[in-house]
């Protein structure tokens, strides 16, 4: 089901995409709406699930997590290892921060955050390569990342 939004909603989404902690009054001023009107729209965007939550944008390096690596994983023995078992086991690794099931050259895409390269190597060797069913693994070290507004 697709939620219907208009241009004012889109303007609000653009504002809160970069600053979700603004008050309804401040959001209203940014898009030319009164505080109550902005508040009602913000509430509706949440209720219809268009806004599914918030996230903190942290500088991981400053917090001591200097390395982010994306791993493409191909399962070696499809049919023998259940996807559910693999997903449960890989999701239980704290350094694995995101797991996506994909179609294509790989079966899964993982985002792994580690303190440094030796720490990453430890996670890769002892935790990820040790999982049942892991076949081909490709690692790409993240250098830069940007979030874009999207089709608003």
């Amino acid at each position: 089901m697709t939620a219907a939004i208009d241009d004012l909603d889109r303007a609000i989404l653009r504002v809160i995409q970069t600053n979700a902690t603004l008050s309804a009054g401040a959001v209203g001023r940014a898009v030319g709406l009164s505080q109550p009107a902005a508040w009602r729209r913000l509430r509706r965007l949440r209720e219809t699930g268009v806004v599914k939550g918030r996230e903190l944008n942290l500088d991981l390096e400053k917090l001591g997590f200097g390395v982010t690596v994306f791993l493409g994983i191909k399962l070696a023995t499809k049919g023998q290892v259940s996807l559910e078992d693999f997903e449960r086991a890989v999701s239980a690794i704290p350094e694995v921060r995101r797991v996506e099931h994909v179609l294509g050259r790989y079966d899964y895409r993982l985002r792994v955050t580690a303190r440094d390269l030796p720490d990453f190597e430890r996670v890769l060797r002892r935790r990820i390569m040790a999982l049942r069913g892991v076949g081909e693994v490709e690692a790409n070290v993240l250098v830069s990342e940007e979030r874009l507004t999207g089709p608003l």
Partner: protein
Amino acid sequence: MLDDFDRRILRMWQTEPEMTAADLAGALDVPTARVTRRIERLRETGVLRGVSAVIDWAALGYGVEVSLRIQIDKTVAGAFDAFMAAARKVPEVTEMQSFLGRVDLRLTVIARDMAHWQSLYRDRILTLPHIAEIEALMHVATVKTDQALPI
């Protein structure tokens, strides 16, 4: 640079980003002004870059998500910058990452359906400059999303 109090705030806040400074202060049993000052400082020092609203594109009718892994033609001077500048102009690109590894760049692209994806791919993606190789991974499901860091 970060002290224990900063870490306590971030640990709690990252698991529940909906919390206000007052909520955090209540949970940590300290005055709100103290939390507000710390959050200000975390912003000033760049530890906290911001708090963003997360949009559910599927709820807006974008049911298709594709991860495009791209190798850039590095024999051309300025190829990276030219590619990235052009990719930023495609509204359906929601994320762009650069890597050290076999893949140079990765784009997250969303589309309303497969027909829309096909036209986007032909008209907007394959026309981006300096692509040496491109490979698509179709997103099926997100099994685990960015979880709290052990700060």
